């Protein structure tokens, strides 16, 4: 044990040398492009590049569906487009369609009209993230509907459920009691389905994002579109169910008159608050999950960055860093599992709080 500490320090010292060496190795032939790997993992793509095996890319090709203004609907398989982009960063596909951008990037689909490239009108392709959304939704439905089926098949005085059903009942009730009910009180039952769906959707998507291979490994809650949609849902629920007091509080709040009469300072701030709250929800979840993914991938990539350094130094550094990287990855994984729960809880709790605030009625004396 006495020797472990110096060794650990040595490894950490070596770690500090990484950026310099990595920077040098960049651009060399056969060098390791960290940026491309990381963004390839966290960003959406038209195909699911699972891994490289024996020099061949193992890719799950997915359907591409888009609507072009000039030629209508098109359905292709992503394998019909070339994997490597050409000199203009365009991936050639059939019928004069191209994908802009790198090979694992979800670029815009453009159409060659005449000699000009025109983006297609809308694009509802089943991309990697959409596929992850489907898989996660099915898992979510199974996780909730199986325990719900137990409830329909059993009477109230039957023995308590065991195993997975028991766990899910306990989990659902813990979220319901501690997050929804403790915030919303007697209105809990009205909003519980929405808030619980949010919680379990986010939780399961987060958790499957941590799993490093399919069906996990997608980055759905780390995608701003997903969090934007969820935040939008909360925004709609909050403002549609808002009481008269809530709107009065915004436009004619209980503040000194000079804060609202000549210059409507408070109403202005309050009005922007309506939009800032869901935006905060959106950014918080997105940033947390994206950061988790980036850190996890970066730690794994350190090994490859080190081995990419030429010569003996690369071998030594790579070997050392492997140990550190695996240890750190384990730590980060454990932390990520915690973050998965915390972020789901934070989103649900804040949604519940916003709903509670907008539903609040003042007792006028």
């Amino acid at each position: 044990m006495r020797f472990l500490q110096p060794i650990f320090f040595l490894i950490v010292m070596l770690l500090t040398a990484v950026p310099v060496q990595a920077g040098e190795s960049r651009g060399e032939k056969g060098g390791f492009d960290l940026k491309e790997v990381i963004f390839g993992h966290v960003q959406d793509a038209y195909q699911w590049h699972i891994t490289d095996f024996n020099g061949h890319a193992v890719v799950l090709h997915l359907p591409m569906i888009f609507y072009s203004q000039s030629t209508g609907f098109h359905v292709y398989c992503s394998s019909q487009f070339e994997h490597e982009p050409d000199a203009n960063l365009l991936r050639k596909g059939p019928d004069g369609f191209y994908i802009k951008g790198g090979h694992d990037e979800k670029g815009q689909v453009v159409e060659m009209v005449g000699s000009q490239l025109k983006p297609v009108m809308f694009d509802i392709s089943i991309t990697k993230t959409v596929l992850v959304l489907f898989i996660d939704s099915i898992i979510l439905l199974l996780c909730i509907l199986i325990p719900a089926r137990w409830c329909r098949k059993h009477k109230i005085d039957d023995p308590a459920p065991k195993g997975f059903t028991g766990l899910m009942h306990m989990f659902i009730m813990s979220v319901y009691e501690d997050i929804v009910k403790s915030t919303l009180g007697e209105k809990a039952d009205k909003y519980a389905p929405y808030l619980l769906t949010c919680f379990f959707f986010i939780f399961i998507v987060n958790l499957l994002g941590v799993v490093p291979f399919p069906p996990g490994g997608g980055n759905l809650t780390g995608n701003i579109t997903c969090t934007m949609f969820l935040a939008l849902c909360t925004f709609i629920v909050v403002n549609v169910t808002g009481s008269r007091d809530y709107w009065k509080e915004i436009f004619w709040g209980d503040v000194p008159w000079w804060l609202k009469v000549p210059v409507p300072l408070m109403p202005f701030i309050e009005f922007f608050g309506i939009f800032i709250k869901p935006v905060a929800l959106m950014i918080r979840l997105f940033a947390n999950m994206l950061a988790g993914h980036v850190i996890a991938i970066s730690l794994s990539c350190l090994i490859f960055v080190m081995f990419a350094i030429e010569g003996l130094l690369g071998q030594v550094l790579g070997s050392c860093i492997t140990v550190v990287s695996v240890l750190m990855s384990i730590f980060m994984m454990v932390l990520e599992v915690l973050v998965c729960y915390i972020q789901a809880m934070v989103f649900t709790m804040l949604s519940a709080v916003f709903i509670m605030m907008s539903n609040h009625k003042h007792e006028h004396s």
Partner: protein
Amino acid sequence: MSLITPDFGLFFWMTVVFLAVFFILWKYGFPVIIKMENDRKAFIDESLKNAREANERLANIKIESEAILQEAHTKQAEILKEAAATRDAIVNDAKDKANIEGARIIEDARQLIQKEKEAAIADIRKQVAQLSVEVAEKILRKELSSENKQMDMIARLLDEVTVSK
């Protein structure tokens, strides 16, 4: 940068899938589980309450039964005491009655005996008188068989009468 620009396709699918999931879970998922769990909780609480009450009642019943037993004991003792008193009274009464009756019977017997005795005495007297008369007659007959003797007799009798006068 595509990292922070929302994507229309994903948004479209997100809307479709999330709303579908939400409505399915709203209809068949969470409310069912929450209702079941709340009902079960209420049921368990109710059962616990009932069990506690039943225990209390059982304890009360024990106490009550003991009280009833105690009461029964006292009553029994009382009844026994009363019975003894009644018995004594009856016995005493009977004794008294028997005494009185006995006395009466004895008295009657005595009276009867007295009467019988008197009757017997009267009878005896009569017979004695008769016998005396017969004896006297026989004696007289024997005594007065001669003239002299009759004369003596008359004389003595006359003497006696005069002496007594």
